[in-house]
């Protein structure tokens, strides 16, 4: 198999205004590559939710996107507080977001379920006090 195209983006944890910019960039790249719109939308939404989570829950991190011949992989790594109970975090409506985040339009507890719904595979590795890595795959 040929080498994947690889893109890496830092995600600034101190700046909510810029949260989501990496996903905007990735969407542009995928459009340029001519992927079908439905696939682009799924990748974009899943990555956007993950990127926002890194900003509001983990103080930022790094996003990596790998484009293979038959799939796109999104890897989101942060050194935030980690997720103690992943099963609980995956439930629709579960959120630990404080009120100031809710007033910015996030904290409905829908992000992780959305990421799972829009991808073909999603894995969460997390250790409390160490960080979280989320790997998602969308098949082409």
């Amino acid at each position: 198999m040929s080498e994947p195209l690889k893109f890496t983006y830092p995600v600034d944890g101190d700046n909510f205004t810029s949260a989501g910019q990496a996903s905007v960039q990735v969407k542009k790249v995928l459009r340029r590559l001519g992927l079908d719109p439905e696939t682009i939308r799924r990748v974009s939404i899943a990555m956007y939710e993950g990127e926002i989570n890194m900003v509001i829950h983990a103080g930022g991190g790094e996003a990596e996107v790998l484009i293979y011949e038959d799939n796109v992989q999104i890897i989101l790594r942060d050194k935030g507080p980690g997720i103690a109970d992943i099963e609980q975090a995956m439930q629709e409506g579960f959120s630990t977001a404080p009120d100031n985040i809710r007033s910015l339009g996030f904290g409905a507890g829908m992000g992780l379920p959305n990421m799972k719904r829009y991808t073909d595979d999603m894995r969460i590795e997390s250790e409390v006090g160490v960080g979280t890595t989320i790997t998602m795959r969308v098949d082409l």
Partner: protein
Amino acid sequence: MKISEIRDLLDAEVLCGDDLERDILSACGSDMMSDVLAYVKNQAVLLTGLVNPQVIRTAVMMDMICIVFVRSKQPSAQMIEFAEENGLTVLTTSRRMYEACGKLYAAGLKGNGEVNE
């Protein structure tokens, strides 16, 4: 429903976007962006009272084509510019969320959950 009809029904002001003849197939009204991101439909309009750059990014991620800010909310020049770059039409109306949604619904525009693609 055409964007021009939405403008007229809501007495809305057009902040950017020049093709008001584009067809809208479904609508979503919410101030919680992840709720919006949960229901993808084609050619949708987002009605919201939230004003920050994430609103525009959410709409762009979802390939929406129109955003209506309710309660006379005014997005910043940067937000409008970003929307324009991405082909979004942006409107603002003095109507409140409930009234704005109700007017569009009564005129036949369905909700996201009711439209079958």
